[in-house]
């Protein structure tokens, strides 16, 4: 396996002060599905925009398929496909016309384009709607057309920026199915960004956890979860003193420093440990008010590496950094 995308010390500064991407380095291997997981405003789209030649780099370097994105943008453009976050298919053309336009822009010979258009429309289940104007399509259909367009020139890397944003649960499942099918049939490299945990978990071979412009962790979903060191038991205990040492000893796990009267314990086989923990607290005169057990999941991975849950991160960025980033991006786009 060799790296098809190489990113070195990448930095993007908007308006001279906002560090949207703050020195990231990573590689994407050929044939893998690689995902960026992070809240809105984490720098995911900014990174994708730089890799796909849409945005200038402040510092660092990017190579795609061996080509430097700043020195040979056209070579890079030839080997990548981008399915952007917004719906950009042309409303006033039919589905097939949209595909044909894309084929012409990528210089796919007519005959071949014809074949591929039929094949791709079948792949994304748009065969019957192919000759209808796109303005009559639903959101899910547009997104599927967008995906098919991104594939017309058989790119070696396909970029999916929030591929299921704004789609309902069923349509999301259909998109995942398409992406898996693609990967199985063509061994294409897929780079996706998402702020949906399940999406990253079920689709990606490797995940980069990205927050505030930095990569906080990078590994396979399984390994990331294993590294958490087991299940999480959260307890609320009323009583004198600090129970954290007691709890850690009782189950041979790790206990975070108490947060008010709440304790967070990391332990393997949590369900077997709960009775033991309850007994030890009760023996020492404490009163357990509540207990919860959580299996390792990516939200906890996120919490582990960023110090906050993904949902909290979403909320805080919406009011703060996310908004500033959105403004900066808007201004960058205007130029």
């Amino acid at each position: 396996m060799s790296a098809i995308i190489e990113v070195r010390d990448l930095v993007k500064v908007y308006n001279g002060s906002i560090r949207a991407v703050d020195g990231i380095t990573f590689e994407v291997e050929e044939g893998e599905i690689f995902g960026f997981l992070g809240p809105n405003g984490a720098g995911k789209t900014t990174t994708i925009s730089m890799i796909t030649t849409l945005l200038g780099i402040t510092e660092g370097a990017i190579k795609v398929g061996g080509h430097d994105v700043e020195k040979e943008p056209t070579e890079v453009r030839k080997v990548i496909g981008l399915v952007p976050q917004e719906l950009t298919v042309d409303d006033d053309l039919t589905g097939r016309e949209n595909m044909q336009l894309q084929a012409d822009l990528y210089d796919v010979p007519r005959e071949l384009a014809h074949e591929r258009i039929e094949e791709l429309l079948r792949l994304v289940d748009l065969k019957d709607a192919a000759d209808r104007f796109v303005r009559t399509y639903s959101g899910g259909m547009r997104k599927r057309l967008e995906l098919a367009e991104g594939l017309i020139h058989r790119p070696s890397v396909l970029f999916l920026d929030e591929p299921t944003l704004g789609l309902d649960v069923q349509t999301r499942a259909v998109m995942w199915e398409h992406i898996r099918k693609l990967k199985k049939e063509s061994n294409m490299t897929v780079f996706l960004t998402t702020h949906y945990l399940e999406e990253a978990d079920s689709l990606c071979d490797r995940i980069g956890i990205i927050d505030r412009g930095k990569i906080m962790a990078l590994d396979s979903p399984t390994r990331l979860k294993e590294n958490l060191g087991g299940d999480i038991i959260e307890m609320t205990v009323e009583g004198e003193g600090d129970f954290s040492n007691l709890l850690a000893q009782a189950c041979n796990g790790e206990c975070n420093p108490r947060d008010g009267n709440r304790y967070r314990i990391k332990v393997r086989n949590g369900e077997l440990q709960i009775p033991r923990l309850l007994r030890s607290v009760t023996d020492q005169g404490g009163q357990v008010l509540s207990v919860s057990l959580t299996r390792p999941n990516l939200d906890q991975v996120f919490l582990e590496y960023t110090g906050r849950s993904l949902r909290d991160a979403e909320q805080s960025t919406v009011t703060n950094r996310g908004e500033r980033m959105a403004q900066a991006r808007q201004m960058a786009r205007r130029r």
Partner: protein
Amino acid sequence: MEMIDLKVALKQTGALTGRELKHWYRIKIQLVLAFVQPLLWLGLFGQAFRLDALAGGMGGGMPIELAFGGAPNYFSYMAVGMLTVIVLFTCTFSGLSIVWDRRFGFLNKLRVAPIPRGIIPMSRVLAAVTRALLQAMVVLVIAVAFLYVPGLVGLDITNSSFGAMDLLTMLGILLLLSLGFAAIFVAIALTITNQDVLMGVVNLLNLPIMFTSAALFPTAIMPDWLRSVANYNPLTFAADGLRQVCFENAVSIHSLGFDVLGLAVFSLIFVAIGIVVAIKVLKY
């Protein structure tokens, strides 16, 4: 600088120009408007503003043919000039689609494709040129047809040897004119990202361009300072050239050769500016 494959670039330009034209002719109301507007202008403005009658009534010393560039009446003078005005008005909005494409993300789809950046404005320019020429030809036909409607004045092409070559010359003149104007307005649209601001700028520009030219009124009756500007307005070059083709014993401002050369320089400069602006604006 990377090499551009000309054949591929032509295919890409064709595909994008086709998209622009599809947007235009598929919306029936746009087609209707495009042809109703010049009809109204010719029908109302052209028939009502009998500047020739006015000139005679005021006892102006100038014979009509002299005042109106050799045209037998004001309507004939004005109808030929109207062809250039139609071109101007069609081209002013040629860049509007870029603003929408930017807003809906389609422009990014083009930017991420392996196409030379200049193709993005050039396809809009070519689509506008096609529309402008088609509309101008319709206006020409309507204006001549007025001759055969009782009670109306029509465009009287007095050049007795008028033939296919003359028609081609007229098309050539209008082609150069529309290339230049479409390129200016596409370049403006590339740098303005808000459609309301763009509309404002377009409206600010198009009327002054029209009135400081020989398109609808002879520059001879303008004050000196205005005439010195108006005589070098591209609309004047075009209208002046067209009249020399249409009318016997035309009284021209410049020679036909100078008019065509002026237009060629005008369109060349603005097409070049359009491409440079596109490369700068669309890079990131």
